[in-house]
């Protein structure tokens, strides 16, 4: 049901145009219908990159304990497949899963159908071209050599153009919202959509196009790299958690005051964290100290969010057995708390002295990026996709397989590298131990990492299988959506208490 009052593209750009107050908030089914093409397109592209990134992850991990593996080709050397893995899963998968989820959440929270879907489609096409060009560039040796920003300079404008479309779309949607109140998820989303282009363009300019001198580059690098996680992925992950946890169990969030406190303290402190990656490095003492203090201050938003989510869930944990979305998101939210507290500890100078430069850091990065963020994104997709396709997920077993392989896999991964990293750090700080002995200490943990990676691979294949299957079902005969998807239709109310 198209509303005739939807503004045209040019009209929606005009600062004078306002939403028509006579138009009521859109029905959920109408919103889902409008999101179907763009959001599904983004999710499918994201999952394709997830599979490709997983292949590169396995190659990278295997090379760590079997250096002769695929060693004959320059383009497959460790130092190239590793950044390709990172950039594919971060910019290819995580980013598209994040933006797709964010678009759907924005529409739902603003209570408007997705406007100008073509912008999203064009943006997604460009984004995927950018990721492909960037990954091939790295394999060809054009990496910038800057962590989290390896995509060669010629890929960046493509990505930026793509992002700009999303940014414009967000502003339009926000301006034409039909729900006056801003829910906490919207704060996080709007903030993330403002922060990301600032971070990305500043880093691209100051590091690649017109590099600043000396270690100022390192400062910009870690200001950017830590904030991509902290001010882009984390807010979107939290926005999803703040929406789906109350939504799935049908109970409002415990305390809105805590939500506000958590949001503003995150905004205030997270962006100052990055320099703790340079503890002991050639940076002025104050710069590192400021970041250490800000890192410890992160306990405030983390504890607030943890309390808020926990008290919302209290008495409702039995829903974990019945809801795939909740299962993934609660797992992610718990790991958000765990990884953040862990991050606070490893920012301290005395801890960093041991753990810096070791596999511990890699374990921590995956803890945040995977055990928290990616799992929350999986949970979100399990909620969103059936509503867009109007089809049921094909198999509960596949979902369980996905959850347990990925959940156990990432816990094994984080455990192995955290422990192995600490042992590596102690060995490295013992000057009487030859370096090759330090390497030998880490080897069993690197093998464990490969095993956990295989577990997660199984989960990713299961998820891709589910997604492919549900999409194929959509091509098949139409089924009554109200019988398939819970809660998205009034006819479902027969099953709900009156």
């Amino acid at each position, binding site marked *: 049901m198209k509303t005739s009052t939807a503004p045209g593209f040019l009209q929606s750009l005009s600062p004078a145009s306002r939403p028509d107050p006579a138009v009521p908030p859109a029905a959920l089914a109408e919103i889902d219908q409008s999101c179907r093409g763009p959001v599904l397109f983004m999710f499918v592209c994201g999952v394709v990159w997830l599979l490709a990134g997983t292949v590169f992850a396995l190659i990278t991990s295997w090379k760590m304990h079997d250096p002769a593996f695929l060693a004959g080709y320059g383009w497959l050397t460790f130092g190239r497949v590793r950044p390709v893995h990172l950039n594919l899963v971060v910019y290819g998968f995580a980013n598209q899963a994040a933006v797709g989820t964010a678009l759907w959440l924005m529409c739902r929270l603003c209570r408007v159908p997705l406007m100008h879907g073509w912008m999203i489609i064009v943006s997604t096409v460009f984004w995927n071209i950018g990721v492909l060009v960037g990954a091939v560039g790295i394999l060809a040796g054009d990496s910038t050599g800057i962590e989290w920003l390896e995509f060669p300079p010629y890929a960046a404008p493509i990505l930026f153009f793509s992002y700009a479309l999303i940014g414009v779309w967000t502003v339009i949607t926000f301006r034409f919202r039909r729900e006056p*109140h801003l829910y906490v998820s919207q704060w996080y989303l709007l903030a993330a959509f403002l922060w990301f282009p600032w971070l990305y363009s500043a880093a691209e300019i100051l590091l690649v196009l017109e590099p600043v001198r000396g270690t100022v580059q390192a400062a910009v690098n870690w200001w950017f790299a830590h904030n991509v996680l902290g001010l882009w992925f984390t807010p979107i992950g939290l926005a999803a958690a703040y929406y789906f946890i109350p939504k799935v169990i049908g*109970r409002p969030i415990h305390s809105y005051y805590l939500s506000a406190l958590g949001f503003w303290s995150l905004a205030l402190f997270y962006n100052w964290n990055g320099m703790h990656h340079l503890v002991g490095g050639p940076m002025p003492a104050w710069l590192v100290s400021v970041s250490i203090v800000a890192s410890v201050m992160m306990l405030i938003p983390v504890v607030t969010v943890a309390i808020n989510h926990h008290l919302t869930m209290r008495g409702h944990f039995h829903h974990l057995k019945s809801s795939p979305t909740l299962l993934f998101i609660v797992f992610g939210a718990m790991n958000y708390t765990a990884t953040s507290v862990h991050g606070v500890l490893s920012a301290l100078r005395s801890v960093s002295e041991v753990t810096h430069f070791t596999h511990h850091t890699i374990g921590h990065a995956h803890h945040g990026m995977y055990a928290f963020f990616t799992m929350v994104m999986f949970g979100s997709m399990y909620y969103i996709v059936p509503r867009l396709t109007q089809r049921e997920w094909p198999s509960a077993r596949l979902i369980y397989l996905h959850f347990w392989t990925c959940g156990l896999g990432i816990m094994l991964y984080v455990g192995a590298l955290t422990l192995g990293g600490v042992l590596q750090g102690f060995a490295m700080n013992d000057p009487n131990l030859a370096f090759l002995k330090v390497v030998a200490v880490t080897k069993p943990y690197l093998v464990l990492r490969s095993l956990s990676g295989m577990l997660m691979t199984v989960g990713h294949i299961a998820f891709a299988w589910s997604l492919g299957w549900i999409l194929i079902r959509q091509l098949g005969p139409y089924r009554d959506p109200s019988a398939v998807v819970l809660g998205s239709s009034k006819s479902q109310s027969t099953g709900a208490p009156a």
Partner: protein
Amino acid sequence: MSLVNWILFIGSFVVLPVSALFALRWAIRTGQLENLNKGALVIFNDEEPVGRVTDRFPRP
């Protein structure tokens, strides 16, 4: 420490808290913080009211 740095640091220590205080005062006076209790309910509506569980595993 050079003059520029002093200005920057003192400036940030004074300007930031003062502006935060003003923002808070403004927010309270204009009622930005008053209807927070509505906020948590905004994701529920007639279609999906409070109390309805909206997700489950697929049934065979």
